[in-house]
């Protein structure tokens, strides 16, 4: 049982990461990651929707006919996003002013429908909830990495405006990496997003291959010994 949860966690965070492995949700990924803070906000909002949609889809999976599952899932996800949008707007308006734009974008995030379809509709509620949470956190991780890279290269800061998103207690996150930086506009603009994503993907693949080679070498050594 524990092994299964470990696998779900590993897949969500790393080996089957929404952005770095499945290459899904690239539209919101590239659109919002001009700063690490934006990436974090979008990631957390998506995690909330993903967690709830996985739980709901998993708990009604017996009732839904395979023939009409897609429209049912889409309606459920769109409703969740709209509810989240209204709730944030009404009760945490300051946060909504920062995140507002991203929340509507979650509807076009195909990763959420993807998880509903490929995981939640085939697994129990607890597994689906964990999968939603981990996929969401993996997505957040990817967005923060991408946003951080673009922000450092583009404006020389990291987590600027974090206090707007997380409250003034988190103002310490806001750091200036390069003082007196003139700015590298390309990284803030959309092409910079593609480039940064490309480099991060390449880095992940190199890392994964090195690790696989090392594991192979260890296995070979064990056999030989």
């Amino acid at each position, binding site marked *: 049982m524990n092994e299964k949860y470990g696998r779900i966690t590993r897949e969500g965070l790393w080996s089957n990461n929404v952005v770095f492995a499945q290459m899904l949700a690239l539209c919101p990924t590239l659109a919002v990651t*001009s700063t690490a803070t934006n990436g974090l906000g979008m990631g957390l909002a998506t995690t909330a929707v993903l967690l709830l949609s996985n739980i709901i889809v998993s708990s009604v999976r*017996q*009732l*839904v*006919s*395979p*023939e*009409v599952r897609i*429209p*049912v899932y889409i*309606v*459920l996800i*769109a*409703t969740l996003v*709209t*509810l989240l949008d*209204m*709730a944030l*707007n*009404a*009760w945490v*308006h300051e946060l*909504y*002013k920062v995140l507002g734009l991203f929340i509507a974008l979650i509807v076009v995030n195909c990763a959420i429908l993807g998880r509903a379809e490929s995981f939640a509709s085939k697994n129990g509620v607890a597994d689906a909830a964990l999968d939603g949470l981990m996929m969401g956190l993996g997505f957040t991780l990817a967005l923060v990495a991408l946003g951080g890279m673009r922000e450092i290269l583009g*404006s020389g800061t990291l987590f600027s405006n974090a206090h707007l998103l997380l409250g003034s207690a988190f103002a310490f996150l806001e750091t200036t990496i390069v003082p007196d930086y003139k*700015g590298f*506009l390309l990284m*803030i*603009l959309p092409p910079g997003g593609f480039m940064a994503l490309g480099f991060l993907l390449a880095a992940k693949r190199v890392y994964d291959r090195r690790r696989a080679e090392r594991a192979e070498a260890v296995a070979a050594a064990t056999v030989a010994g």
Partner: protein
Amino acid sequence: MKLAELRTRLGYQALLLGGVALLTSAALAFAALLTGPEIKAAEEADLKQSLTQVLPGSYDNDLLKDTVSLHGEAGEVLVYRARRTGKVEAVVYRVTGYGYSGAIVCMMGVSREGKVLGVRVIKHAETPGLGDKIEPAKAKWIFDFDGKWLGEPPVDKWAVKKDGGVFDQFAGATITPRAVVKAVKGGLVFFEANRAALLDEAGGVR
């Protein structure tokens, strides 16, 4: 299993879709009822904040309730009036310029003498790092308008320096400041054209 057999029926699928649509719209309607007043209050607070940013000084009326809608060059303009002891001291309204990537919406405050009290860009999609210097958080440029009117600088100098005017453009971005200057100038022309109606002084009453 009985449910598995039932699920393949056309009637069940239609009912399921209908049921899901009904449930979700009910949830949305309920949530809209629940959050509606709060959202409205929050938006009013936002609006009030953006109004007071371009209105230095104190006023004794509720700006959001004291409005007048006038016909401007680009359609209806909703004007908020700030009064002190019944007299209109300043008016606030939105003006729109067209920059490098679409509309730039500004809120501008104008005193009863026709001087700019303040301008703030409330919505724009200009290039980050170049055109976004119109935001007060990025540069002080937008404060250049404070205290200006159609006589100072003279009307034909209401342009960016590149066009022979007095307002700075930014390195790498001329279209954006040009659009804002034009919008603010248009706002002042609108004020002069509708002065009596804006100041609520038609016929010298009040």
